């Protein structure tokens, strides 16, 4: 069993597991932090961005000034933003049989894999994962396609050139493999390869392996996966949460007794408490608005935003914000708000109970009804008529490199009355802000990451007790910025095996058994013999049938009557098949009883001689000699088959067959 690690990002994993005869890809995460190296894509022509000076080398060489621009001491690529794909060379991806998706954030690289690697398999994911994943992809494609950029920079990627660039461009990894965004056509084709599954659904892969998604508690439809055969079990834990937010709680019990537990997608901000962050978010928001400023919340169109809207629903009136408009701007805003309401079965108990009444599970329905929350596909169109300040705007993309958020950063950045509040943990907020510097606007960092922290992980591992833990290398040492915090790493026994991008791990377990079925006719013919108290044995001689990786043992066919054909019998027909093995024998032969038996069967001239290791029994008339020792019997006789068979059967009476 092997694990091929294709992504170095611990929360956006992409691993391939080879287990029995199957090749299973676990998640398909797309590392979008690469876009931080690019200039933002403004929706409306931005004089500031287009007038940024080109970057020149120290020696004054300007050949890169078309591709690279400088802003407040940082250098950015002026080009269509590009993403860092999972490794595609480590393993032939056309051999991947299935892809298991754990949540909608971990499927963003799917079109790159399913459309461009010769992949012909099936993708498995839950319905909310697919629907919301589609919305995230749709938004991404829309953000990038609606501001066509003529320029596609490539000079800077040249290894020789990249060496000369300032950090972080200089240190960017695998830049040659960075790719532009996919198209909607590729998205649709990729999503058409997905088969929907429900929690605890057992899915058979080629009869060899069974995979099962389990609720992971992190997002709508988010799952961990069990990959097992009858004797081996691998748990894949990715993006799980023990906090009570909107999704169904995490199923921990089913992870028990794993041989290997692969652990990815832990919290990216282990030191921040999500509840505290939500509180800070609300109070900063209220403070800004009361002072007449606007609040910008860069966010994904689904996920934490549902919880934030729910908090605000409870908070608005008490904080005196009832007259402040809340805007949610995304090409998929409406769909996201609507979809959240129809996945009753994937929600936590409280929300499910509301649906039974029947009431919408999320209170944002009421916010929309009472006109407190308005949603728009973009800043163009209706929004420009309705737009009133001060207001609160939720919009993407959290990287601040594309989407409507770019417009609001340009619009509100110059006033210290306004605030941008970062809630998504995927991007460093300082890096995100870099191309907008200098900024007058206030910046608040309230990252809300509900995924497991290290305390929860160690509790979980104690609870489910896997034999081995495998995780990204980042989790086996404290974060680089907090190297003294020995508590911010995985602590388990035996120590976790760690992986990094482009590594292949041999997973530490050996398969010993496989399931086989015995047909009832054969089972009836078996003769169990109790060898020791509680242990019985039966020798089995049977025909093995293997089909679709399922093994069945059938009773051997009865010897058929030789056909009464006139055809001359060939010599070879009589030759026995040497592979027809006789059973092994065990036990020992008590000489006295053996001699008595011989005499009973008409051998009258039996003589016994003692030897160093045993006895020799002589049948003088038949010129036959039987050496009997503790663990062996040797019959030496003339070529008298009748006699030999008689003696053989008498000996066998004293032995057990295996």
């Amino acid at each position, binding site marked *: 069993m092997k694990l091929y690690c294709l992504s170095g990002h611990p929360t956006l994993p992409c691993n391939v597991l080879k287990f029995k005869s199957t090749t299973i890809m676990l998640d398909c995460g797309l590392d979008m932090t690469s876009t931080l190296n690019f200039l933002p894509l403004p929706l409306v022509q931005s004089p500031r961005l287009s007038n940024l000076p080109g970057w020149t080398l120290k020696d004054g060489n300007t050949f890169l000034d078309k591709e690279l621009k400088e802003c407040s001491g940082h250098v950015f690529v002026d080009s269509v933003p590009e993403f860092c794909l999972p490794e595609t060379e480590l393993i032939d991806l056309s051999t991947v049989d299935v892809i298991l998706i754990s949540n909608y954030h971990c499927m963003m690289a799917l079109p790159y894999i399913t459309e461009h690697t010769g992949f012909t398999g099936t993708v498995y994911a839950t319905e909310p994962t697919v629907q919301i994943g589609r919305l995230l992809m749709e938004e991404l494609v829309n953000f990038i396609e609606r501001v066509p950029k003529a320029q596609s920079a490539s000079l800077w990627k040249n290894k020789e050139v990249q060496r000369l660039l300032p950090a972080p461009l200089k240190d960017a990894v695998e830049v040659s493999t960075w790719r532009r965004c996919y198209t909607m056509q590729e998205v649709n084709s990729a999503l058409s390869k997905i088969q929907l599954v429900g929690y605890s659904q057992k899915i058979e892969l080629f009869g060899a392996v069974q995979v099962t998604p389990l609720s992971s508690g992190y997002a709508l439809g988010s799952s961990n996966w069990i990959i097992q055969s009858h004797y081996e079990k691998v748990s894949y834990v990715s993006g799980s949460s023990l906090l009570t937010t909107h999704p169904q709680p995490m199923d921990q019990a089913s992870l028990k007794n794993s041989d290997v537990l692969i652990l990815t997608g832990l919290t990216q901000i282990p030191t921040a408490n999500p509840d505290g962050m939500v509180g800070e978010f609300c109070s900063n928001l209220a403070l800004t608005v009361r002072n007449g400023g606007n609040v910008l919340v860069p966010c994904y169109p689904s996920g934490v935003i549902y919880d934030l809207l729910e908090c605000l629903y409870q908070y608005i009136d008490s904080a005196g914000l009832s007259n402040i408009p809340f805007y949610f701007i995304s090409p998929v805003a409406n769909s996201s708000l609507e979809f959240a309401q129809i996945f009753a079965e994937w929600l936590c108990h409280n929300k499910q109970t509301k649906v039974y009444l029947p009431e919408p599970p999320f209170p944002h329905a009421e916010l929309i009804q009472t006109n407190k929350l308005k949603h728009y596909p973009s800043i163009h169109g209706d929004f420009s008529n309705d737009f009133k300040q001060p207001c609160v705007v939720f919009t993407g993309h959290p990287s601040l490199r594309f989407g409507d958020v770019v417009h609001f950063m340009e619009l509100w950045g110059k006033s210290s009355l306004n605030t941008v509040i970062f809630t998504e943990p995927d991007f460093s907020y300082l890096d995100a802000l870099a191309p907008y510097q200098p900024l007058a606007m206030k910046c608040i960092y309230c990252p809300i990451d509900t995924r497991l922290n290290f305390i929860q992980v160690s509790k979980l591992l104690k609870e489910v007790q896997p034999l081995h833990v495998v995780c990204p290398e980042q989790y086996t040492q404290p974060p680089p910025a907090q190297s003294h915090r020995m508590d911010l790493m995985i602590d388990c026994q035996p120590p976790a095996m760690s992986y990094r991008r482009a590594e292949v791990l041999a997973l530490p377990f050996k398969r010993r*058994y496989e399931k086989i079925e015995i047909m009832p006719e054969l089972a009836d013919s078996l003769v169990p013999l109790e060898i020791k108290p509680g242990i019985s044995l039966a020798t089995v001689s049977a025909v093995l049938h293997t089909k679709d990786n399922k093994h069945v043992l059938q009773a051997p066919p009865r010897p058929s009557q030789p056909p009464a054909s006139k055809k001359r019998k060939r010599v070879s027909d009589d030759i026995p098949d040497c592979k027809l093995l006789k059973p092994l024998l065990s036990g020992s032969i008590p000489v006295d009883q053996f001699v008595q038996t011989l005499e009973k069967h008409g051998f009258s001239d039996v003589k016994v001689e003692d030897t160093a290791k045993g006895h020799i029994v002589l049948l003088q008339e038949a010129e036959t000699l039987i050496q009997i020792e503790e663990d062996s019997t040797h019959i030496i006789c003339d070529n008298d088959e009748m006699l030999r068979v008689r003696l053989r059967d008498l000996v066998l009476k004293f032995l057990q067959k295996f």
Partner: protein
Amino acid sequence: MPEIKVTPLGAGQDVGRSCILVSIAGKNVMLDCGMHMGYNDDRRFPDFSYITQNGRLTDFLDCVIISHFHLDHCGALPYFSEMVGYDGPIYMTHPTKAICPILLEDYRKITVDKKGETNFFTSQMIKDCMKKVVAVHLHQTVQVDDELEIKAYYAGHVLGAAMFQIKVGSESAVYTGDYNMTPDRHLGAAWIDKCRPNLLITESTYATTIRDSKRCRERDFLKKVHETVERGGKVLIPVFALGRAQELCILLETFWERMNLKAPIYFSTGLTEKANHYYKLFITWTNQKIRKTFVQRNMFEFKHIKAFDRAFADNPGPMVVFATPGMLHAGQSLQIFRKWAGNEKNMVIMPGYCVQGTVGHKILSGQRKLEMEGRQILEVKMQVEYMSFSAHADAKGIMQLVRQAEPDNVLLVHGEAKKMEFLKQKIEQEFHVNCYMPANGETVTLLTHPNIPVGISLGLLKREMALGLLPDAKKPKLMHGTLIMKDNNFRLVSSEQALKELGLAEHQLRFTCRVHIHDTRKEQETVLRVYSHLKSVLKAHSVQHLPDGSVMVESILIQATAHSEDPGTKVLLVSWTYQDEELGSYLTSLLKKGLPQAPS
């Protein structure tokens, strides 16, 4: 021999009161717990005393499964769990769990408040009963206990309707509940994989009907409604609040829209809005088209259909009213029917099956003079139309499901005996499987022949698979191993491993046979002759001439020695172990026949 036992307590050669007991590999499951619309006495509920006379039901049943929210499938549930007493798990899908208590409460109200019955279940009992319900997802494998698992499949009949697979080890049964094999305007078609159950228990409401195309029926329906409204008549459509009602509402709504009609359409119950809300929230259970477009246009938000008020029934002019319940056996639909029955301009359209004993059944069978409460005679002059919009599979659909699931046996419930008889023959003919149709209280017992799962050591399996690469139909290869049975753990290992695990030593049994042959040449030459002879006969075996002057055939050793007395005779010593018995025995008899003359 393991067996599966099935006893219907209701729905055996009948429609109504669905309740089927299944015993499979020692587990007892009750499928559905319905009431009978045709009775008002004890017969309306299944006879649970059949399960146990004095013990607790919980001790006898491992679980209860409810297929969908129709009262003939869940109407007896609070009586069963709270009044008779059952505390075990009850499984149903999420929409069923949401909607079921509302219909039960409705049923309770009609029975207790309107008819004044006492000794019926209370609202509190419905609540307590629902607390015992565990909601299941489609395709989720629910582990009831260590051995018993159940799995729901989409049935399409009403929102949340499911078929259930019950499985213990390798033995399984599938219960369809009510299902529909053709997608309609708001639901998808039933689907099941090739799960090859030992038994398929299927409904057979339309066992003999092959329905014409749905489009024709819809056109017919719209035409009749339209004509009646045009001539100023009133149309009554008795329905159950959830199910066909939504289907017909969508149909009329789109028709009204297209034809720009003005006559009012009413829906008679306070449930409407609530009911439609359930459809909106459980939209993932509807068909592909509705799910795809719901963000832009929710099909369950009706523009033309308004809530009905009792006073509207006397309004002059045309109107269309959907009223509950669907079989005209009580409630508002019956009241409106009594008001409108006398006018030949009006029309009642029965869109679904009516159980015997109901007013609906009577008028459909042609009765035009009905005896109502208080000996009053009601003359029916209004037009009576029947149009099957029930979302049940027809004969073709049932056959299709059997083909999909590939069961070993089929058992029919939820249908009329005569029609079942016909379908039974058809199923037996086409699929060559046994088909049963027990009456209520009658038990069907099926023998099953499950394979026994054991663990085989990978070493042994791989060795055998490597040998078996070229399967030969004439000479099937036998594999040999030892089954170790310890407690309940069965493992098949190679004989060597079994000996080793048990700490036993192998006892080697060896034979050495002296074969005398006439040969005057030297021993070495005799050996060479033996070698070339065996080589030519045993083409498929390994025959070696060893440097020490002996011959090896596989692991059988042959040596030649001189005869102590007769120099013209050589003695061949053939030595083999018991494991090579067949070949050893064959070699001695072969050599005994002598060697062919050497070509010289």
